[in-house]
């Protein structure tokens, strides 16, 4: 292993500190889910499925729907994930996403409300980590945003009868669907601290060399909605400030590129799902 792996802005694979590895994205692979996406970031492979079910809204937010994240670290990704080994990592990714989306400037969940304080759509976002090649948080968050973009929820007709009862009817038209506006859905940007400099998109080897990282949730407008620190090491306050600046800049570019590509994918006529074997 090299000492000072990112000295003079040159990492072991030739990237600069702010360079991401090439990613590959596909949405709509899981036909029975409301929305799905698969993201490959070099050797990191993540599959996300979104399922919509009707349930009760949170008491503190009666006029909004809910998002529930659950992460499953497959034993295929790493031998450490066998049995219950992956639970700690899964829990931390899920809680990081929950915090990122909890901000009011993130995803607007009000369109998901059916009957205020009584019924709303709950979107269960299930994340499956198939292969671990470093930078899990970023890959997971981009795949989640793509899956939410892809998600289609049936539109419901709500009518209130005279007795105060509310009737909810599912329309006969299968193409009457509700789509979420994921413009403000945040993407996570992981900044790894190596020798008092921050690098983005670390590989597994780089992650092993570092003692601390900062996971920031950034929206398309460059707004930071959540910050989590991981690892045993410590950050100097000036490093944190410059890291957040870097994260905001990178996050805005990441969000913008992701949205652009999702829109391009939507425009493709007769798109064939390549899936895992294509």
């Amino acid at each position, binding site marked *: *292993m*090299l*000492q*000072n792996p990112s*000295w*003079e802005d*040159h*990492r*072991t*694979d*030739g*990237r*600069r500190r*702010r*360079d*991401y*590895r*090439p*990613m*590959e*994205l*596909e949405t709509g692979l899981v036909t029975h889910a409301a929305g799905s996406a*698969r993201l490959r970031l*070099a050797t990191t492979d993540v599959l996300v499925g979104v399922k919509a079910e009707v349930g009760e809204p949170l008491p503190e937010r009666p006029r909004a729907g809910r998002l529930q994240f659950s992460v499953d670290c497959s034993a295929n990704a790493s031998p450490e994930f066998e049995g219950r080994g992956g639970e700690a990592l899964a829990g931390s990714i899920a809680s990081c996403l929950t915090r990122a989306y909890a901000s009011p400037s993130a995803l607007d969940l009000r369109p998901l409300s059916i009957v205020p304080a009584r019924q709303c759509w709950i979107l269960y976002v299930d994340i499956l980590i198939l292969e671990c090649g470093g930078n899990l948080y970023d890959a997971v968050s*981009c795949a989640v945003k793509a899956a939410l973009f892809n998600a289609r929820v049936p539109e419901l007709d709500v009518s209130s009868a005279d007795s105060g009862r509310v009737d909810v009817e599912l329309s006969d038209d299968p193409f009457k669907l509700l789509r979420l506006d994921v413009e403000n859905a945040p993407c996570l940007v992981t900044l790894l601290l190596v020798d008092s400099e921050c690098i983005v998109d670390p590989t597994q080897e780089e992650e092993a060399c570092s003692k601390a990282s900062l996971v920031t949730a950034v929206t398309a407008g460059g707004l930071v909605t959540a910050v989590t620190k991981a690892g045993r090491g410590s950050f100097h306050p000036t490093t944190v400030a410059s890291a957040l600046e870097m994260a905001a*800049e*990178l996050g805005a*570019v*990441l969000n913008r*590129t*992701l949205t652009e*590509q999702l829109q*391009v*994918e939507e425009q*493709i006529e007769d*798109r*064939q799902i*390549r899936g895992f074997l*294509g």
Partner: protein
Amino acid sequence: MEVDIRLAAERLRQEEATRGAAQLVTPGDTVTGDGGFMRGHGTYKDGENLVASVAGFVRRINRLISVQPLKARYNGEIGDVVIGRVIEVQQKRWKVDTCSRLHSLLMLSSVNLPGGEQRRKTQEDELAMRSYLEEGDLISAEVQNIFSDGSLSLHTRSLKYGKLSQGVMVAVPSNLVLRRKNHFHDLPCGATVILGNNGYIWICATAVGEDGGAGTGGYVQNLERVPLPEREVISRLRNCILALAGSWMMLYDTSILYAFEASSKFQARDLLKPEVMAEVADLTRKRLDLEAAE
């Protein structure tokens, strides 16, 4: 600055490479229904049929049918040069990870003492083992012996083997590294490459020394900062090796050097893109084919 996100739908379909008579099978595929063949590695009998249990090519030698897997754990042979990472320090030996089915063992009696002393190892040496090699250290060694359970016994009884200091380790499938006379190559671009038979490859800057950089017995680590031009060469080599491995090309000094030369028109970080990797591998393959034809 930009982020490169591409769509799976826009990925070019790779042409099916015509592979002649070789038959590629996946686990569960029937290799043959003829009962007259002997069952080799990678197959099992399912009723009358011989079925493949691994993904790979069918190899037939007279009446013996076996399936040679594409990706398999490293099977060591005596005399192989390997690169391993020390996993554990035990009594009188170190456990080393060489990407084989079992961890390899490096006996205390099979290492050179610092300074090149040749003497019997004492109790003090046993207690001082951690000062020689610790968990996490990378070493280059040679396979001395194979135990009855299949695990390898390594030795570093030469000045060219020992602890590796500053460089980059790349892991590729072990069957891509050819068995050759020499595994230590000083490439003209200024880097030294050690091609471990187990698939672990070590790239570092060529050490400039009076002994020609042949080896210091392996305990002295040079921890000075490696200058930028050398680091650029090392990372370019790393990406070239991964490009060749991604196209299943054999790795040896000539192929790596040709790939390095073919990659000079790209920036080192652009070599991470799949299409660039395929192009570099393709150019290398063409150049090697041209040479072979002469």
